[in-house]
């Protein structure tokens, strides 16, 4: 489709002058891509797709040129994107530019003595593990998937099962290079206001180019794991409170479909990196080997109704009952302990075309009553949520918009097609906001903008810094537009 005046090259020359073209945009057809490649992007939850031009710089120079081009173009800005694992619209920028950082994929230096690695922002944690584990080093913090980039890990200031001991990802960052809206590359260290705004800043302060990260020495690529089954939420909370500190890693999986007295029954798994002596005999020859299993990916085009209360309920019952009542010292491969879902590529497809939302909140330790009410509400409504996860956070992190704060964090996945889900999640948000808890921006795709300043008291400071650093909105995203960040 084109509205431009076209002249046949073989046609007779026209004597009358062609009308002056009015504006370039009026000459292009509707589906004609403008400069760069227009792509439809969503987050991992596959909801709310929007179109953006995607640039994939391969070097620092190309990244600087891309940001310069965005600044000159003026409208609609740009946002960095890594492997697209944020669930909502954090790495989308409708009508603007998305800077695909996965082309910045070099590991620049590994210092075994200082136990640090310096790598570009597009390097994934998976790649780091492949390279570092044989050297006896591990990433200091890993979320439930290895397929996140280092830049994304800083932007969302991710946490893992060890938050109660080790804090968030950015606490292990020694320094980072940030490309800001003015085209400058700045080297930042913790304590610098711009560093603390960037940690958890969802890419809105600029494009992280490289990161120097402190690593954790490990002797094997195995874990020793204690597993126990707990019959209800109260038992779980007290168990975690009294003994989480004895483990480096701890997480509980909760059955939110169990009702009545069993509401909140859970399988608690806790562990630490295994010493060589704890390994099974067949693994002792190559204790640092890292060969995570790959199953076939989930197929495309699955229907939206697969995960319903009946199927998820059956799955949850099975999962709970197949877990040992109590087992200690079990050796587990690192990947199956940390990243059980990474074996199945594109597992987000099982929710079908309607996609899914993840809801993750944190409420203070002193507000476990709010947590109980939230679990009760979800259980009473019979939300088909499998893989609801509960974890105990340690001290708050310095990032202004970092999610973790001391307390309980609950995360659950729900099919986006559930009728009335939006209003229901709004009521859960109110519970969270009422006790000064917060929602995780890397997961959000639907919260009410009004709650953001309540949940993130440093928001004003963040806005002020952004207004000064980037007055023309060179960096912005769908998330920022939706929530008015």
């Amino acid at each position, binding site marked *: *489709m084109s*509205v431009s005046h076209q002249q046949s090259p073989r046609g007779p020359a026209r004597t009358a002058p062609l009308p002056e073209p009015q504006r370039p*945009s*009026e000459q292009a*057809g*509707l*589906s004609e891509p403008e400069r760069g490649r*227009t*792509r*439809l992007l969503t987050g991992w*939850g596959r*909801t*709310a*797709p*929007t*179109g*953006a031009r995607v640039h994939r710089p391969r070097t620092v120079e190309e990244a600087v040129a891309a940001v310069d081009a965005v600044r000159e173009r003026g409208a*609609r800005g740009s946002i960095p994107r890594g492997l697209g694992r944020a669930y*909502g*619209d954090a790495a989308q*920028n*409708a*009508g*603007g530019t998305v800077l695909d950082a996965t082309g910045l994929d070099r590991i620049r230096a590994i210092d075994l003595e200082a136990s640090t690695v310096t790598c570009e922002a597009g390097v994934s944690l998976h790649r780091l593990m492949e390279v570092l584990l044989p050297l006896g080093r591990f990433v200091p913090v890993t979320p439930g998937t290895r397929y996140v980039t280092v830049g994304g890990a800083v932007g969302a200031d991710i946490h893992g099962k060890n938050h109660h001991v080790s804090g968030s990802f950015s606490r292990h960052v020694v320094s980072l290079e940030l490309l800001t809206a003015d085209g400058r590359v700045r080297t930042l260290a913790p304590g610098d206001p711009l560093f603390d705004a960037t940690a958890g800043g969802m890419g809105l302060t600029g494009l992280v180019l490289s990161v120097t990260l402190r690593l954790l020495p490990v002797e094997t690529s195995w874990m020793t794991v204690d597993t126990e089954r707990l019959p209800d939420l109260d038992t779980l909370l007290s168990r975690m409170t009294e003994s989480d500190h004895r483990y480096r890693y701890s997480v509980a999986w909760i059955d939110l479909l169990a009702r009545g007295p069993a509401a909140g029954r859970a399988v608690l798994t806790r562990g630490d990196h295994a010493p060589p002596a704890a390994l099974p005999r067949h693994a002792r020859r190559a204790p640092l080997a890292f060969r995570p299993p790959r199953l076939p990916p989930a197929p495309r085009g699955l229907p939206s109704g697969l995960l319903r209360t009946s199927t998820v309920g059956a799955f949850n019952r099975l999962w709970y009952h197949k877990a040992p009542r109590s087992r200690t010292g079990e050796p587990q491969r690192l990947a199956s302990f940390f990243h059980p879902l990474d074996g199945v590529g594109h597992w987000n497809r099982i929710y079908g075309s*309607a*996609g899914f*939302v993840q809801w993750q909140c944190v409420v203070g330790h002193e507000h476990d009553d709010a947590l109980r009410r939230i679990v009760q509400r979800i259980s009473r409504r019979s939300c088909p949520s499998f893989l609801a996860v509960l974890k105990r956070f340690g001290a708050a992190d310095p990032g202004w918009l970092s999610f973790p704060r001391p307390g309980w964090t609950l995360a659950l996945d729900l099919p*986006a*097609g559930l009728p009335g*889900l*939006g209003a229901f999640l*709004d009521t859960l948000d109110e519970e969270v906001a009422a006790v000064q808890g917060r929602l995780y921006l890397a997961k959000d*795709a*639907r919260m*009410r*903008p*009004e709650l953001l300043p309540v949940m993130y008291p440093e928001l004003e400071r963040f806005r002020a810094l952004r207004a000064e650093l980037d007055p023309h909105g060179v960096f912005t995203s*769908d998330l920022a*537009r*939706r929530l008015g960040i």
Partner: protein
Amino acid sequence: MKDAFGTPQSLLVLGGTSEIALATVRRLLTRRTRTVWLAGRPSPRLDEAAEQLRARAAEQGAEARVHTVPFDALAPDDHEEVLGKVFAEGDIDLVLLAFGVLGDQQRDEADPRAAERLARTNYAGAVSSSLVCARALRTQGHGSLVVLSSVAAERPRRANFLYGSSKAGLDAFAHGLGDALHGTGVHVLVVRPGFVATRMTEGMEPAPFATTPEAVAEAVAHGVRRRARTVWVPGVLRPVMSVLRHLPHAVFRRLPG
């Protein structure tokens, strides 16, 4: 921006006094709504519609601002400017193209100028204003364009082929537009309601499967959430019209109504 459930924060209605449109806005109005634009010919009715929506928004605790903007489907020369101003104020998450006239088949058959005017309103005016909106949505990289078509578009009938043909043209246009915008982030939803009991159909004998503005509103909300291409209201009209479409002509012509 729309959220994961397709809830819009800003709405633009072309044909701001349409009952179906206002029912749809009421249905879509939530605490997340920031802006509503009602575009239409300036009239007390348009102002009244805006006032009612303001009251409705206040009831829900929404901070929505409701504006009216002068817009005439029959003045395509102004569409670019009028609608351009609206988009310049900020992103629009959902555009609802709801204007249209039913006409009077008997009278219009005898008055070609009136028939031509109907065609210009329902088809040409809609084409012009949708293209303006489509381009703006394309530039912002997101948004839904909801076009009110009609079951009458499916197969023209003796009793209302003037109206039916204008909607048939619009329907084909809107589906094509949806294809042209595929992959850009912009979504086009074509709504095909049956007989809807409104001011426009007042005094007419309700056809089978008659429906209400509220039912159309619900179907629009659902279609936007699912990012559907076409919705029928009520849904049963889809199989019904599928049968009617394939009826032999001799039989179809003799159907009552």
